[in-house]
C-alpha cells in the first residue's frame, strides 16, 4: 500500500482504498486484525486523525469493525461487499477513461473489442 | 508555585563552587601555617608572629562574585523549565539566605581549626575573624561565645547583602543595551574615582569626600566600634538590592 501525497485523491480516501485493496486481494482476511491507527500514522507519516478518518469510512460501510481494547478487524462478508461495490464502480472507474483515451488515439469500437479478446486469451 | 524546584536548582548551582572555595581556602591557610612553622623552626630565636586578620574577607569576596555569576545561566535554565520569574526570584532569595546562614558557620569552623593547628604546631599566627579585626576595641571584655555570635551575625548580614549586590549588578548590565553598558560600566567608575574627587578638591575643598567617608564610617560603625550599625546597613542594602533586582527581573526578556 502506498500513499501518494501528490495524488489528487485525499489521503484518507487513499488509506480507505488501500485497505479495501488488501481485503480484496486476501492480504487482510476476514476476522483478522488490520494495522492500528498508530501504525498507519507512523508508517505513512500522516496525522492519526487522517488515518482515523479513512478507517471510519470503512467502519461506516461495515467493512471493518472495532473490538474494544483489541483493535480493528475485517468484518465477515467484507470481501463480498467490496466486490459488489467495485463491480458497480467498474464502468466509471475504468471504462469511461478507457474510451476517452481510445477516442484521443482514434481507436474504433472494433479495435477495443479486439484488444479485450486478446486480453482474455492470455 | 514551584519554589522548591527553583530553590533546589539555584542552591545546587552554588554547592560545588562553595566546596571548591573552602577547599582552596583551607589549603592556602595550611600552606601559610606550614611555611611559617618552617621559618620558626629554622630560626634560632624561635618566635615569629604573623596574623591573618579578617579571614572572612575572602568569603565576602567569593560571595560577591558568586552573586555576579548566579543570574545568567539560572535565568535561562529556569525559564526553559516553565518557572515564572516570580518563583525564580523567590528561590533566589531563599538560596541567598541559606548561603548566608551556612557559610559563616563554615568560616567559624575554619578559624577554630586553624587556631588549633596553630597551637599544635607552635607557630604564632593569629587567626582573626572580620569582626575581631575591625571591631578590635569592642571585643575587649567579651566572652568567646559572644565573639563567635557577633562574628557569625556580621558575616551573615554582610554576605547576603554582597551576594544580592552582585546579582543586582549583573541584572543591571543584562537589562541595559550595549550603549547603556558602556555608559554605566565606564561612567560609574570614572564619576566616582576621577570626576568626583577632582570636583571635590577643586570646588568643594574636599567636603564631599570627607562627608562620604563620615557616612561610611557611621553606616558601618567603625569609629564608634559598633557592629550593629554594619549589620543594619547590610540588611538595608540586602533589601534595597533585592527590590531593585525584582524590578529588573520581572520584565527581563530571554535574549538571543
Amino acid at each position, binding site marked *: 500500500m502506498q*500513499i501518494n*501525497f*501528490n*495524488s*489528487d485523491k*485525499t*489521503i484518507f480516501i487513499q488509506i480507505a482504498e488501500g485497505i479495501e485493496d488488501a481485503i480484496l486481494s486476501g492480504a487482510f482476511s476476514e476476522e483478522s486484525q488490520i494495522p492500528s*491507527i*498508530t501504525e498507519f*500514522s*507512523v508508517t*505513512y*507519516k*500522516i*496525522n*492519526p*486523525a*487522517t488515518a482515523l478518518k479513512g478507517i471510519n469510512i470503512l467502519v461506516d460501510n461495515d467493512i471493518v469493525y472495532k473490538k474494544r481494547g483489541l483493535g480493528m478487524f475485517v468484518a465477515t462478508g467484507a470481501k463480498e461487499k467490496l466486490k459488489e461495490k467495485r463491480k458497480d464502480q467498474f464502468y466509471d472507474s475504468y471504462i469511461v477513461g478507457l474510451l476517452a483515451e481510445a477516442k484521443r488515439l482514434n481507436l474504433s469500437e472494433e479495435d477495443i473489442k479486439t484488444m479485450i479478446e486478446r486480453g482474455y486469451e492470455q | *508555585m*514551584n519554589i522548591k*524546584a527553583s530553590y*533546589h*536548582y539555584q542552591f545546587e548551582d552554588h554547592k560545588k563552587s562553595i566546596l571548591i572555595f573552602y577547599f582552596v581556602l583551607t589549603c592556602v591557610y595550611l600552606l601559610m601555617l606550614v611555611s611559617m612553622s618552617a621559618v620558626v623552626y629554622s630560626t634560632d630565636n624561635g618566635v615569629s608572629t604573623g596574623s591573618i586578620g579578617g579571614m572572612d574577607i575572602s568569603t565576602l569576596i567569593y560571595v560577591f562574585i558568586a552573586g555576579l555569576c548566579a543570574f545568567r*545561566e539560572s535565568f*535561562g*535554565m529556569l*525559564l*526553559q*523549565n*516553565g*518557572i*515564572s*520569574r*516570580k*518563583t525564580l526570584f523567590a528561590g533566589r532569595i531563599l538560596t541567598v539566605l541559606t548561603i548566608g546562614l551556612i557559610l559563616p558557620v563554615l568560616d567559624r569552623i575554619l578559624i577554630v581549626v586553624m587556631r588549633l593547628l596553630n597551637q599544635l604546631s607552635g607557630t604564632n599566627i593569629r587567626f582573626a575573624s572580620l569582626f575581631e579585626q575591625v571591631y578590635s576595641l569592642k571585643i575587649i571584655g567579651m566572652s568567646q561565645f559572644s565573639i563567635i555570635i557577633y562574628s557569625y551575625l556580621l558575616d551573615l548580614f554582610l554576605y547576603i547583602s554582597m551576594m544580592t549586590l552582585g546579582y543586582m549588578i549583573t541584572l543591571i548590565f543584562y537589562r541595559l543595551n550595549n550603549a547603556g553598558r558602556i555608559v554605566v560600566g565606564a561612567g560609574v567608575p570614572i564619576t566616582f574615582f576621577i570626576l568626583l574627587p577632582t570636583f571635590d578638591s577643586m570646588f568643594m575643598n574636599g567636603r564631599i569626600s570627607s562627608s562620604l567617608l563620615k557616612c561610611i564610617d557611621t553606616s558601618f560603625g567603625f569609629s564608634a566600634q559598633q557592629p550593629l550599625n554594619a549589620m543594619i546597613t547590610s540588611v538595608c542594602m540586602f533589601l534595597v538590592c533585592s527590590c531593585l533586582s525584582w524590578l529588573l527581573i520581572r*520584565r527581563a*526578556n*530571554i535574549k*538571543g
Partner: protein
Amino acid sequence: MNCIEVKNITKNYGRTCALDNVSLCFEENKIYGLLGRNGAGKSTLLNVITNRIFADSGEVFVDGQPIEGNDAALGKLYLMSEKTNYPEKMKVKHAFSWSKNFYPGFDAAYAASLAEKFELDTNKMIKSLSTGYNSIFKLIIALSVNTPYVLLDEPVLGLDANHRELFYRILLEKYSEHPCTIIISTHLIEEVSGLIENVIIIKKSKIIKDESCEELLSQGYTVSGSASNVDTYISNQNVLGADTIGGLKSAYILGTRNTEIPEGIEISKLDLQKLFIKLTN
C-alpha cells in the same frame, strides 16, 4: 475549553513590527503547523506564548489562565527552540534529571530509550554536542516531558535525513498513544504536510491563514497543461500564481473546481508548499 488563547498580541523591536495584533487559539490534542518565511514572526510568537519575552500589548491564556507569573499555566507548556537555555557545562543526563524536577510528568525511562534510539551519549556535556545532537537532546526532553502543550521551533534543525525520519515516527507514535497539542514551527513544509492537522501562516507579522489543512487545500486547485490552454482557462479565475517550464504551465487557483474540464488540461489538488510560497511571496 482547553486551549492556548493568544489575544491581540503585538510586539515591536524598535521600529520593526514582529507581531501585529495576532489572535489565535491552539486547541487541545491537535498537531499545528506554524509556517512563515524567515523573520515573519514565528519564533517571536512562540517566545511570547511561553513568556520568555514580553509582548507590547495583548495577553496569552493557557486553559483560561493568564501566563504572567503563573507557574501552573507555564508548567503546561514546553518550548524547544534553537537557543539552548541549558547551561553548556551540564551533562545531557543531568539535563534529563533536572527536567524531572521541574516537570513531574517527565518520563525518564522513555527519554533514556529515545537517547539510545538516536545514539545520543548522555554523558556528554551540552557544549560538546554537534548542532544536530543539540537539537536531538532538546527534542528528547520535549517528547518526554508530557505537558499538554508542546511547542517545537524548527525541531529538525541540523538533523540528518535518518534522524529526521526517526523523529517524525517517534512524534506520531507518541501523539497517537498520548494525544497532546503539538505546535511545529518549520520551514520544511513538505516534510510536515502529512502530519499537521491545522495550518497557521504568518506573513510579515500578521496571520494570513488559520484553518485546518483540509479546508485550506480544498479552497483551490492546480491547473496544468500547455501554456496556451492553461492561460485560456485561467483568464477569469482567481490566480494565486503560476510556474512555467518551456511551454508547460501550472497555475494555482483559488476557487471551486468546475465539473467541466476542458481538453488539454489537468486538474489536481493544491500542494501545501506551493500554496505557501505563492501566498507569502
